[in-house]
Structure formats: structure tokens, C-alpha cells
């Protein structure tokens, strides 16, 4: 499945990654020998029901969690710990409430010693502008709406210019209208600053709308079930028929698997 002849040419290579979680009563096999390669500039969406290990896999790629077996290569180098080349955008409320929107974007920039202070400020304002929040640069975080918060989070993740953007259900807590607007905006933003993206979601349509490739995962133990290429042109309309057709195909595969397990 998606084996690439020369792994060094890939941005990310996930090589036989397994993970168990141990509690007092039981061991959970969260991930079972996952192999996956992500090309430069590719957007890969991990989809699956809860418990399929997709968020755990993202944590392992980020370096926040160590795998029990296998390894992750980023640009051919093994991932040992979190690094600025792979920034994570979490679900809501990962913004720091003691800083304003601008301060949150500056947080990551200040950790890059190669920038001069004046450049940092300029970059921070540029990215707030990119996500459409230049007027709210100095607003306290809790005064922003859920959608605006995730825009700040996106600016915070993009500003330090990471090689890879890891997104963990970033729009899961938002209402449908806010989300539709964000799908449009995020495709515009990606057009301007092309990144390698791994995007975790349980929403199949969201995955089809954003991904070049959708990886369907199944739970207990977490495995890759199938991969779907999405050859639609961008920008994609969330409500278009083509998109719905792809989504239906993937949803059917997901249901078929669930049905097979129930028997």
C-alpha cells in the first residue's frame, strides 16, 4: 500500500509503528504495524471511528509519544522528540489565554533564534492577516469565537514555517457554518503556502474536501484499512456532487468493515 521505492524522497515515512496502552486492568493495542509514506506537499487525511488510533499516530509523528515498535522518519531522520519542523494544531483551547492573539503567534516565532525581533513581529502580523484576524491581533483569547480561535491556532502553527503541519481534529468542536467557511479559507491559505499536512478527523466529507489522499483506519487494533486517492481539483466545494460521491464510497467501505465485524 503506497510503498515508495525511495523513502528518503518522502517527507514523512511511518515504518512499522505499533503502540500499546497499558492500564491497571487491560492492555489496549492502539496501533498495529502502521506503514505510511507522505510526499512533499501532500495532504493526507486519517479518518476512522474513535479508538482507531489516528490521534495516537499523529502524536507519534509529532514526537509527543514514543512508539513501542517501528519508527517515524522525517526527511529521512528518525523522530525522537517534538521538533519545530512538525507543528501541531490541536482541537480547541490549545491557545494560551494569558497571551493575546498576536502573543500566541509570537510564541512559536520567539523560539526560532534565526529571526530578528522586528521580522518576528512582521511575520506574526502577516499570518494574522492571512487568516483574516489582523483587527483582532490584540484581543484576549477568550473573547474570540470558536472559529476565530482556530484561525489564530492556524496562524500560530504556520508562522514559524514548519515543514509539516499536523492537525488533530482542528474543526471538530465548531458549528457547521463556521466549518464550511474555514474549509474554503484553509484551501486558499494552502494555495499560498504549500505544506505537507497530516490531518486527523472522524468526518469523511471533511477528509475528502481537504485531502489528496484519505487513509481509512479501523479500531482494535488500530490498522490502516484502505487508502483512497482524491483526484478532485481545488478549490473543492464541500457540497459538490463529486465530493459527495467520493465520501459515499469511503463511508461505504467504513460501514462494510463495521458490518463484517458485527457478524
Amino acid at each position: 500500500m503506497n510503498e515508495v521505492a525511495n523513502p528518503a524522497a518522502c517527507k514523512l515515512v511511518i515504518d512499522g509503528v505499533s503502540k500499546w496502552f497499558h492500564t491497571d486492568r487491560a492492555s489496549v493495542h492502539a496501533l498495529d504495524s502502521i506503514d505510511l509514506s507522505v510526499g512533499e506537499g501532500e495532504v493526507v487525511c486519517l479518518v476512522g471511528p474513535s479508538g482507531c488510533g489516528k490521534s495516537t499516530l499523529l502524536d507519534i509523528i509529532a514526537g509527543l509519544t514514543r512508539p513501542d515498535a517501528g519508527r517515524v522518519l522525517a526527511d529521512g531522520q528518525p523522530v525522537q522528540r517534538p521538533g519545530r519542523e512538525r507543528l501541531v494544531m490541536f482541537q480547541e483551547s490549545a491557545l494560551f489565554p494569558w497571551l493575546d492573539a498576536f502573543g500566541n503567534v509570537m510564541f512559536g516565532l520567539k523560539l526560532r533564534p534565526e529571526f530578528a525581533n522586528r521580522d518576528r513581529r512582521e511575520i506574526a502580523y502577516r499570518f494574522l492577516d492571512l487568516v483574516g484576524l489582523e483587527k483582532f491581533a490584540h484581543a484576549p483569547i477568550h473573547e474570540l469565537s470558536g472559529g476565530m480561535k482556530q484561525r489564530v491556532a492556524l496562524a500560530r502553527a504556520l508562522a514559524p514555517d514548519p515543514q509539516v503541519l499536523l492537525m488533530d481534529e482542528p474543526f471538530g468542536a465548531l458549528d457547521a457554518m463556521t466549518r464550511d467557511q474555514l474549509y474554503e479559507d484553509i484551501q486558499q491559505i494552502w494555495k499560498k503556502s504549500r505544506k505537507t499536512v497530516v490531518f486527523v478527523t472522524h468526518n469523511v466529507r471533511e477528509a475528502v474536501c481537504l485531502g489528496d489522499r484519505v487513509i481509512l483506519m479501523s479500531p482494535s487494533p488500530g490498522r490502516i484499512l484502505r487508502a483512497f486517492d482524491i483526484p478532485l481539483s481545488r478549490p473543492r466545494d464541500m457540497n459538490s456532487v463529486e465530493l459527495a460521491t467520493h465520501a459515499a464510497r469511503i463511508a461505504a467501505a467504513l460501514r462494510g468493515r463495521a458490518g463484517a465485524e458485527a457478524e
Partner: protein
Amino acid sequence: MKRALVATLFFLALLALWELAARSGRWSPVLLPSPRHVAEYLTAALQDGTLIEAIWVTMRRLLAGYVIGVVLGLPLGLAVSSSQMMKDTLGALALGLQTLPSVCWVPLALLWFGQSEGAMLFVVVMGTVWSVIIATDHGARNIPPIYARAARTMGSEGLHQWTRVILPASLPFLVSGMKQGWAFAWRSLMAAEIFVTILTGFGLGHLLHYGRELNAMDQVIGTMVVIVLIGLAADRILFSPWERFLHRRWGTNVNVT
């Protein structure tokens, strides 16, 4: 404006009730002086300087004990919150000793330090430090772990993470820990001053104590009024603005204790 009016009316009504009770003649004026008598005592004590002197002595002791208690308590509280082992050991000790009323430290302090400023300071520190540890630990435990995770992915670690993430994230809880400490220090010091009679300084607690010895009820009630007013002022001036600022900024509902 309306709130201030209601509050003023409430306290005027209380004073009126007190005045009526004093005038009714059912109780001896020695046991229940009228508000006017208490006011006269307070004016006299202000004019001859005993009250100012007592407030100054008490505040100096309070500040010393409080600062020591907070300086010890905040880092220990953060340490307790950082590991299960610390929680099971130091945390359990702090929880136990926090339940001990601070006046229970007085006999021990008197035997160890004699009738001295040291005994007084010891009682205040013991009354303060455990509650600060408990409040700080409780607060730090409630920091969402996602802040630290997000910071780590941006390359923050070690000292940077402590000073730029953990510390600001726990600020609302640190302030409630400091407020808790202030309330306990104040109670402990009053207990200490009433029971530790020394000559190196004549505090508000001593005014109370000698008021009782001399059957001077106007002095006892007047001093109590001053103690209440100082407590209220500390809350309004020292802590409330901070708490309001943090609420606004953090957008949290930190319990106002």
C-alpha cells in the same frame, strides 16, 4: 450606586439595632457598650497613637510571616503537583497539618521559642504555609495538559516551559493560593498575639487581650472592628483587582474563595 446605598443602609441598620440594644438597659454597659462609647475609644486610641502603633506592629509581623509562608509554599505546592510521589508524601503532610487550627501551634511555639517574636513568627508561618501548598497544588493540577503539549511542539522545553507556560497558566491559581495564605496568616497571627504576651511589640491581638483583662469592653469591640476592617481592606485592595484582571484575561471561573 444602588449597591452602595443598600450596603450603607444595611450597616446603618445594624448600628441602630446595636444602639437600641445598648439603650434598652437589659445588659450592663460594661458588657455591652454603645456604639458611641466604642467610637470614643477608637478616637482616643487613634489620637494617643496606641492604635496606630498596634496596627503597625501587627502588620509588620503579618507581612514577615506571610512572605515566608508564600515563598516556601508556592514552590512546594508546584513541586507537590508535579509528581505522584510528592503528592503522597509532602502533599499528605500539608493536607493533615492544614486541618490543624493554627492556635494549636501556640503551646509548641511557646516551649520552643519562649515568649518571643520567634514564637509569633513560627505560628504565623505554620498557619500559612500548608494552606498555600494545598491551594497551589490544587491550582497547578487543573492546568489543561494541552498547553504543555502545544508548547513542546513549538520547541519549548525545560526552564522555558516552566517560566513561559506552566507559571502563567497557573497564575490564577497562584493568586488564590496567596489569598488563602493571607486569610490563614491573619487568623494565625491573631491567635498568636492573644496567647503570646511579649514586650517587644504591642499588636492588635494584645489590645484585645488586655481589653479583656481590664474589662474594657469598648476596647475589645473597637479592636475587633479594626481587625475586620483591615481584613476587608486587604481583600479589596490586595486581591480583588488581581482576581478581576485574571478572570477577564483568562476568561476562567476560578473559584473566588
